[in-house]
């Protein structure tokens, strides 16, 4: 009895949530037509790109319980693939699509291999190996100068359709929405539920008859490919790529966004991306006021540590908890009243 009732409440809740998401999406689509600040538009574009990146990270950390410290390598592979194709060949759409295909292939292979090597071991191993692999790619990008121009990087031209800032804003926004819907579907699919089961209790998942390692590898491949896609959009947005795309900072961004936003929620990754990108932007401005703000990472680092320690579920998770509790209190109260009456 109570179960069915609760369910109805829940589905109303879901509906309301969907309406809110739709309104926000529409507002974001309309935003550039109402506001003509170019820098704002660029900032939002960055948010969308990093939201995709952070959601791909959330699939690993939040849904499957895997910690990766090398997510930048997938991002970087995408960024370089598109840069190299546009530079070495022609900045046309077919070559762009070819770059996308190559990105998918390389990220899938790399994530598959790293996963196969370490995902059956303790969580430390995957974290360490991804960290090491990412640094390998960084060195590769520095050393393979004929292709990458080393540290300095290179600029390139992009296909026609990406050149207009507004068009690109919309492309990134749509991409983000599509990735969100896709991952939402994915994490709610039978397979996605198994991933969450693995996060909760690996041994038990195994004893239910699922072969855990295969699921983990699938998660890491999907996550790697999506991160590569975010990398593609990133370098297209800058029309420039250098070794910074392979650095730890990129991985840290994903980590901060996911954790502060709330792991295992997807929407938290988007909120986190917005928060971090905007904070980043403002703090850099503040650097003119006081030099300490140039070292804004310190503040982020401290906030991040505090979040891991005290709010391990991030903004979205904490809000949900509070909501859940208050809802429970309301039902408790009504039950009490019922009992009294």
């Amino acid at each position, binding site marked *: 009895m109570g179960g069915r009732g609760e369910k109805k409440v829940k589905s109303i809740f879901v509906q309301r949530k969907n309406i809110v998401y739709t309104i926000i999406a529409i507002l974001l689509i309309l935003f550039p037509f109402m506001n003509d600040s170019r820098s704002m538009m660029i900032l939002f574009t960055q948010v969308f790109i990093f939201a995709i990146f952070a959601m791909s990270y959330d699939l690993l950390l939040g849904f499957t319980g895997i910690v990766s410290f090398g997510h930048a390598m997938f991002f970087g592979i995408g960024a370089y693939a598109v840069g190299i194709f546009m530079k070495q060949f022609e900045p046309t759409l077919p070559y762009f699509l070819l770059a996308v295909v190559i990105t998918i292939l390389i990220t899938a292979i790399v994530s598959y291999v790293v996963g196969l090597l*370490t995902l059956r071991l303790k969580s430390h191993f995957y974290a360490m190996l991804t960290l090491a692999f990412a640094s390998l790619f960084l060195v590769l990008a520095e050393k393979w100068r004929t292709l990458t121009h080393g540290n300095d990087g290179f600029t390139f031209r992009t296909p026609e359709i990406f050149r207009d800032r507004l068009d690109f804003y919309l492309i990134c926004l749509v991409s983000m929405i599509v990735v969100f819907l896709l991952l939402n579907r994915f994490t709610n699919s039978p397979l996605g539920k198994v991933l969450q089961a693995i996060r909760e209790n690996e041994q038990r998942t195994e004893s239910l008859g699922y072969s855990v390692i295969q699921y983990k590898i699938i998660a890491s491949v999907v996550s790697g490919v999506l991160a590569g896609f975010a990398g593609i959009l990133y370098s297209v947005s800058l029309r420039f790529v250098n070794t910074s795309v392979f650095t730890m900072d990129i991985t840290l961004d994903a980590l901060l966004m996911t954790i502060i936003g709330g792991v295992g929620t997807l929407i938290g990754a988007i909120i986190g991306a917005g928060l971090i990108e905007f904070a980043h932007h403002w703090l850099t401005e503040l650097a003119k006021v006081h030099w300490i703000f140039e070292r804004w990472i310190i503040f982020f680092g401290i906030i991040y540590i505090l979040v891991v*320690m005290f709010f391990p579920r991030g903004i979205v998770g904490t809000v949900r908890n509070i909501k859940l509790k208050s809802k429970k209190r309301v039902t408790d109260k009504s039950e009490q009243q019922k009992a009294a009456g």
Partner: protein
Amino acid sequence: MDVFFNLTLNGLATGMLIFLLAAGLTLIFGLMDVLNFAHGGLFAWGAYSGTWLYATTGSFIIGILGAVVTGLILGLITERVIIKPVYGNHVQQILITLGLMLVLSELLKVVWGPNQLSATAPDFLKGSFEVGGVIIIKYRLFIIAVGLLVFFAVQYVLKNTKIGLVVRAGVMNKEMVQALGINIKKVFMLVFMVGSGMAALSGVLLGPYSGVIHAEMGMEFAILAFIVVVIGGMGSFPGSILAAILVGLSGSFMAYYVPDLALAANMLLMAIVLIFRPQGLFGWKG
């Protein structure tokens, strides 16, 4: 022959520096089951504080002592504030220590500025001497000596003293050690401090060896140390020195003969170990 000898010496010296870093990591992991991703940050703090003290006082010895003290203090704070709340939760440990790494390396830039510091060996370790037609750089020899000294000292303490006995027993059965009246938490703290001190020592020794130090090298060296820990077997002390020497030598030879593949070689080594012996060469933990 000359080249071979020099490369070996160079590789050994690098290996010893990595060992000092990896040994702390592996001790902490073995006893406390904590993988400290901030270890590279402690290394960098050791490097900066030591090099700075060395430059201000002119005494290399004071620099070294200062670095070690810095390491010990930071280790103490780290264990109390950061690690203690997350014992037993691997994912949180990994995440939180990485956050600390971030803060440590940024704070470094606040204190000493974003630019790199340079360092040279003190007079008594400058220069080189010749043995049978081979030129030996004194400072490299010094690093190897310090590394070996630390290795044997730690080995001696572990094998022959009461506290070492307690540490080894604690790795096997924490509960029983406590039931014998020993405060294992204090031992944990001590091990963490010693491990951090070793990382800091490694950092300050690096200065005159590579000429300059910069804030990013914490992460660079930490990656090498992780590779060493995996190859040697997580939690194995003798394993870590062997693997460190292996990584140091392969780095030094590869850098000379196939410079572009130096880091790849280590990765390859690690991948092979992971395929055939995931517990590492000397490992006994899964």
